[in-house]
């Protein structure tokens, strides 16, 4: 019986199948009939229309490049803007002999060999109906000269193009970055991101800094014109036009005046400064010294300037704030003190006797304190105020490297801060696992000792140090730093704020924080390592100095700044936040080969804070000479 139904089912299935196949065949015929009708419509009925379009006139889509968005500081001061200038442009497809045309042009308007070279390069990359600039920034006189001779040059015209300009030159180079000509690689990326069609007609793209990271917002939407052109390629009339949409305007959280004061404060020194509003993560100043002139990069930097930048021992192209990795030195101590208190390894009253060195049990190796002879009896408060090394050698060993590593990761050490420009380095927060992975070596207790004073494997970027200081000022809550404060939509004029973003919602015990803060406040007072920089302040500052070794000093030898080559001198560091009780600004300063943090780095921070909190503009001579103060860190 079952067999029978199956047979019947089989037959039914077959019947069904044939029915449905016949139905499909009908659909196929109908579909092909439709296609045939469409072809007939296109090629017979509409033939004349398309014939005209194709033969006599051709439709060309001419892109209209949008104006690139502006970059302004928090008060609307332009840091990157556009200006219009005349360019001399050639349409290669309309010119019979390019070389003679250019030679003839050179007879009336100056065309350098560099211009020619650049034009050749553009020519190789271009589509045939585009116009290409041979000279930019024509003067009024040159425009007039060409206008008189215009009849001699079919296919050559004067156009106005927009150029990008960075009015503050070096001051914002490492923040704003620059645009540059679109390269093959950029093209590939744009194609991958499926936005290539929006870049038709655009020659420039953000290459560095905010210009790069906010490219999408800054570029805008390309408009286009459907133009009918005659056989010669000349535009006959415009059929349709869609206007472009300008790029959005970026408002930075940076105060340009503050930034300028910070840059000036560095004088001839190399280094970095990052200032952050602790509660929001807004970056108030972001300095890497020396900077470079971003305007030189917009149309491709010439060989001489490039060599000068690239070979300079000052490395102006290196974004030290973002990518420089330095030992934090003694600026690490407040964080270590927090770790000791929070993890219960130290109480405020716990006191050690510092003979001027530290030894591990069962070892004779002396880990020296910076002060020969030592600081005598030292508790937590004093350890920060006088920056006692011996106290932190012991604390580090008591905590153990993995506890230190875990604790410090809450301050953002060892990981990227997530700031809104690209290329950030993550520093090194050492741990047993890290050493095994990177160096294939076991961790030794001796390694832990020097980590306690911010030396050893420890590396931080100035940005990370500022972010960590801001977190300390913000009761432990770690914020993502950001340079852009708000974005103004070019179409609607609507301003959208960049919301503060918490990276680690971790809270420190208020009583522990109060202890560390009080000690940091006393660092700035008489008896502290930055008392000079703190003198006469109308608000309370919590700070900590630091010095990072560039070259190792042998056992039993003494570091004498004047004997060490300038570039091997110690780096000076300083962190601070103010006002200490209700912090509005947190700062990290690094001065390369500056020697000592209290005398070189701290005054720079003081000037920035004075301006930010009081509006005080410093007088001319800003930084004292390095050799003046004998005091050490």
């Amino acid at each position, binding site marked *: 019986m079952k067999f029978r139904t199956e047979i019947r089912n089989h037959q039914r299935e077959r019947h069904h*199948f044939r029915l449905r*196949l016949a139905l499909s065949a009908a659909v*196929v015929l109908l579909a092909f009939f439709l*296609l045939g009708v469409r072809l007939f419509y296109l*090629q017979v009925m509409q033939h004349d229309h398309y014939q005209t379009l194709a033969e006599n006139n051709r439709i060309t889509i001419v892109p209209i490049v949008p104006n690139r968005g502006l970059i302004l500081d928090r008060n609307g001061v332009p840091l990157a803007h556009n200006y219009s200038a005349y360019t001399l442009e050639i349409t290669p497809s309309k010119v019979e002999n390019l070389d003679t045309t250019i030679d003839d042009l050179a007879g009336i308007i100056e065309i350098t060999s560099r211009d020619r070279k650049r034009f050749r390069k553009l020519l190789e990359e271009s589509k045939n109906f585009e116009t290409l600039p041979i000279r930019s920034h024509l003067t009024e006189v040159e425009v007039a000269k060409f206008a008189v001779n215009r009849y001699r040059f079919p296919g050559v015209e004067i156009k106005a193009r927009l150029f990008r300009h960075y009015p503050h030159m070096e001051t914002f180079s490492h923040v704003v970055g620059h645009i540059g000509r679109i390269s093959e690689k950029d093209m590939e990326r744009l194609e991958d991101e499926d936005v290539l069609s929006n870049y038709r007609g655009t020659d420039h793209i953000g290459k560095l800094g905010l210009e790069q990271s906010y490219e999408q917002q800054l570029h805008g939407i390309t408009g286009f014109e459907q133009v009918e052109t005659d056989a010669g390629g000349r535009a006959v009339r415009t059929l349709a036009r869609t206007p472009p949409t300008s790029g959005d305007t970026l408002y930075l959280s940076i105060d340009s005046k503050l930034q300028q004061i910070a840059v000036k404060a560095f004088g001839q020194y190399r280094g970095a400064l990052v200032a952050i509003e602790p509660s929001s993560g807004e970056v108030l100043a972001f300095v890497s010294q020396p900077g470079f002139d971003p305007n030189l990069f917009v149309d491709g930097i010439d060989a001489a300037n490039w060599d000068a930048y690239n070979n300079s021992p000052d490395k102006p192209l290196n974004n030290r704030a973002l990518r420089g990795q330095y030992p934090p030195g003694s600026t690490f101590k407040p964080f270590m003190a927090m770790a000791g208190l929070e993890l219960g390894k130290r109480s405020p009253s716990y006191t050690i006797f510092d003979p001027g060195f530290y030894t591990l049990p069962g070892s004779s190796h002396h880990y020296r304190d910076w002060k020969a002879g030592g600081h005598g009896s030292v508790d937590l408060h004093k350890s920060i105020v006088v920056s006692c090394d011996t106290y932190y050698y012991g604390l580090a060993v008591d905590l153990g490297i993995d506890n230190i590593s875990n604790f410090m990761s809450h301050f953002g050490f060892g990981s990227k801060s997530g700031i809104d420009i690209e290329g950030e380095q993550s520093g090194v927060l050492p741990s047993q696992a890290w050493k095994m992975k990177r160096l294939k070596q076991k961790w030794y207790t001796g390694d832990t000792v020097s980590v306690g004073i911010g030396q050893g494997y420890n590396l931080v970027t100035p940005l990370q140090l500022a972010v960590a200081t801001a977190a300390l000022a913000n009761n432990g809550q770690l914020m993502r730093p950001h340079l852009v404060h708000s974005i103004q939509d070019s179409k609607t004029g609507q301003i959208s704020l960049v919301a503060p973003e918490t990276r680690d919602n971790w809270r420190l015990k208020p009583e522990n924080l109060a202890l560390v803060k009080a000690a940091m406040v006393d660092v700035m007072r008489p008896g502290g390592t930055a008392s000079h920089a703190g003198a006469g302040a109308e608000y309370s500052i919590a700070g900590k100095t630091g010095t990072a070794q560039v070259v190792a000093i042998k056992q039993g030898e003494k570091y004498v700044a004047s004997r060490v080559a300038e570039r091997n001198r110690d780096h000076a560091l300083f962190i601070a936040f103010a006002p200490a009780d209700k912090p509005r600004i947190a700062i990290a300063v690094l001065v390369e080969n500056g020697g000592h943090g209290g005398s070189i780095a701290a005054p720079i921070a003081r000037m920035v804070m004075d301006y930010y909190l009081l509006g005080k503009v410093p007088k001319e001579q800003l930084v004292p000479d390095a050799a003046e103060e004998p005091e050490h860190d």
Partner: protein
Amino acid sequence: MIRRLFTRFVAHLDGYLLLALSLIMLFGLVVLYSAAGEDYHRVIAQVVNLVVALGVMWLVANIPPQHLARLGLPVYVIGLLLLLGVALFGEVSHGARRWLSVGVTRIQPSEIMKIAVPLMLAWYFDRRAGALRFKDFVIAAALLLLPVAFIAKQPDLGTALIVSAAGFYVLFLGGLSWRVLIGLALAGTASLPLLWSMLHDYQRQRVLTLLDPSQDPLGAGYHTLQSTIAMGSGGIFGKGWLHGTQAHLEFIPERHTDFILAVLGEEFGLFGGLALLALYLLVIGRGMVIAANAPTLFGRLFGGSIILTFFTYAFVNIGMVSGILPVVGVPLPLVSYGGTSMVTLLFGMGALMSIQTHRKLVKT
């Protein structure tokens, strides 16, 4: 001796199909020479593609259908694993993650699915032949949607479309009830406004551009605009081989791959286009006859799906180039330049030939 060898060599080929296919390929090569800017290197490369694909076709034609059917499950599973591999480790190219790097070469697992899905489904239905229940259709639909979801996510809409079509044809020919079909169609239409309201602005913009390319004449719309100008200006007889102005002025993008029909239309006119349609109809008609006469459910379903999928390729491509369908990446079968799709298409043709030429063996 040589005669016997020859007879054995062609024993499993289908004369009608082979003739129609060969004519299309020859026509394709002629058009390609013009589309590639009279670059014979491109033509030679395509000939190599054709030879390889024909070899695959011959091989498949010589495998009896019941052996082919048994490949369904393993090929499907491997294809699915490879798709998973692409999702996890795939290489990104042109904004989509489609390729999987295997040592020296790269493979595109979604292409395998164009065969694997109908093969798997036809095999499954064949096993349940005579006792197909609603439950089986549900399982089959799941087997179809899983790889389609992966491919759509890459994203590769063209391939996702072809794979879902190939699977759907098996379900349809297998007897999916009309009530379900109509129900699905109604539910789909009804849910459109809801779906629309859930989309972001930019996603809506994308959909609109897909439906009306003139909204984005710099991007997707540029292709259609230029291809319709080229075809329309070709007229009834065309401008003659190598004499198309639009194609040679490089107005037509991708003119040797997805948009090759624009060159054909411009240079060979309405006659060229209708001739191509006629040749496609020959292939499809023969394929349908083979499927209708197949002795097993597997043969019917797999054969039917292959030939309807072939039709889908042609319809979607021609519709897209002539401007009545949105632009999705589907090649013109056997004409567009490219090796991968050629192999997949001729694999299917080989399977049809196998179903046709192994009939008697199964019937007894």
